[in-house]
């Protein structure tokens, strides 16, 4: 190498060294980051991508709904003690306060090779990183006749809060006194483990006051109550004696809409007046369509340190769509926590830093057993590097000793704060 070349190389090396940090920072500022889905996971991811990048990352949120409606607490709308308006928040703060571009549209497809997202309206967007937080798909075909019964309005799921939640309340309110409200639960995992049992309480709370001869029938495909079991059973016995009938190991296979008959895998047919049949669930449709659901074709495997899909690089999947770690529930609170770990990881990666080697998640879930009293379940999950997964910390977490009105106040406190944390 001659002298001139040596000098040239050295200067280049110097420039490279001096410019290293600036270059990494430029990557963060230049990157196109898309977030698909504005639920508890996606909205939080969009906001925290901005917060953790000190408002330098370019973030676009794609969400078809005009407002955010909370699934947690929506059983109170089924029961009639609250309205959807109580659970609705605007997306405006994400754009006004946090500088997030919001596109009101849904995603038709993701091309992971070209790194593009095609919107339903036909427009194509390029991405460097994309966060996919599409919630769940109700697998209507897992119960024969359910898709048609639902189209005809005979059965309702109301497992995504919205107009169906109100419609289910109306069906219950129109039911004759002495009628049966049947709710069926698929095998776990499904969205919101305690949700169906809370709903049974809310329906019973309404019936007790308005149609006291009526019954709530819980047909559970699982071996036993999947969350807060002892607490729910005590409430059913003490607050709703003779009104709630719980049948475990009752797997619904078909429904006859004309005769309102539910067919079970093992037991005899059951008739009911209101049919709230929850089918098996899978990752949100866009995740399945993109080939991300590499766990039984239903859930998305992710690297838990950053929530990147194990199927595709630069696609991060959050919330109910993922194949969960041990004792990790599919909840709104958990989706919010996933989002913060993923947002921090994306900011670190685009800045050229190591991703946090020890992220932490918490979960808190409140269930209303009537319109005032609440029970909770809580947990803390630490990342175990050697096993590349999250595990609940032994000795931590737990449930309420009994329902209380104090926790009823905290439940609304939780709601107001998590809505502000995700969207405010």
């Amino acid at each position, binding site marked *: 190498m001659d*002298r001139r070349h*040596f*000098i040239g190389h*050295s*200067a280049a*090396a*110097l420039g490279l*060294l*001096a410019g*290293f*940090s600036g270059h*990494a920072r430029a990557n963060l500022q230049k990157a196109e980051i898309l977030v698909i889905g504005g639920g508890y996971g996606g909205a939080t991811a969009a*906001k*925290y991508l901005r*917060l*953790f990048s000190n408002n330098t990352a370019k973030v676009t949120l794609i969400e078809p709904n005009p407002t955010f409606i909370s699934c947690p607490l929506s059983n109170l709308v089924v029961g009639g003690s609250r309205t959807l308006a109580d659970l609705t928040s605007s997306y405006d703060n994400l754009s006004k306060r946090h500088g997030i571009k919001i596109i009101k549209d849904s995603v038709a497809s993701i091309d992971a090779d070209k790194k593009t997202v095609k919107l339903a309206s036909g427009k194509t967007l390029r991405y460097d990183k994309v966060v996919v937080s599409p919630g769940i798909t109700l697998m209507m075909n897992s119960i024969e006749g359910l898709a048609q019964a639902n189209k005809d309005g005979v059965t309702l799921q109301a497992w995504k809060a919205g107009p169906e939640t109100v419609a289910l309340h109306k069906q219950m309110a129109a039911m004759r006194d002495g009628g049966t409200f049947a709710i069926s639960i698929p095998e776990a995992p499904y969205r919101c483990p305690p949700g169906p049992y809370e709903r049974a309480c809310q329906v019973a709370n309404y019936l007790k006051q308005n149609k006291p001869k009526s019954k709530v029938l819980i047909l559970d495909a699982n071996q036993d109550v999947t969350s807060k079991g002892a607490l729910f059973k005590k409430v059913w016995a003490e607050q709703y004696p003779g009104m709630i009938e719980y049948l475990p190991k009752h797997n619904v296979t078909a429904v006859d809409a004309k005769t309102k008959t539910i067919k079970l895998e093992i037991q005899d047919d059951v008739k009911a007046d209101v049919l709230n049949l929850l089918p098996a669930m899978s990752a949100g449709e866009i995740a399945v369509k993109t080939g991300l659901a590499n766990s039984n074709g239903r859930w998305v495997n992710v690297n838990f340190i950053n929530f990147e899909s194990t199927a595709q690089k630069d696609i991060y999947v959050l919330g109910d769509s993922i194949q969960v770690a041990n004792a990790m529930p599919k909840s709104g*609170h958990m989706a*919010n*926590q996933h989002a*913060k770990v993923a947002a*921090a990881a994306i*900011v*670190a990666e685009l*800045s*050229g*830093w*190591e991703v*946090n080697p*020890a*992220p*932490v*998640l*918490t979960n*808190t879930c409140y269930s209303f057993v009537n319109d005032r009293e609440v029970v*909770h379940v*809580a*947990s*803390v*999950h*630490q990342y175990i590097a050697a096993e590349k997964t999250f595990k609940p*910390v032994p000795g*931590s*977490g*737990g449930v*309420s000793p009994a329902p*209380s009105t*104090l*926790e009823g*106040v*905290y*439940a*609304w*406190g*939780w709601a*107001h*704060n*998590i809505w*502000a*944390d995700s969207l*405010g």
Partner: protein
Amino acid sequence: MLAKYLKRAILAALYIGFSHWSSTAIAQNAEASNLYKRGLAATCANCHGTDGKGVVDGGMPLINNLTSEQMLTQLKAFKSGAREGTIMPQLAKGYSDEQLVTIANQLGKK
């Protein structure tokens, strides 16, 4: 003569470059470490508000009136069982003592 001068200049330039790089690396580590701390404190935000600024009159006890020292004392009391509560005694037990210090430092009143 010229060769000697150039060699020194190059060495000096490389030295400056290296020290700049290492100080940049340290700055990056500090920034990364700060991000990890913010991430840890954000595990509290669902119930107590973004950056510990909870919704006033929202129903959840506010924590942003506590200094870091006061907050750490309460967190330790929840963890040990000295202070009773609903969820906090259960959650505090899930964090290491070091993590509780970080949380208190991040969220305490400045």
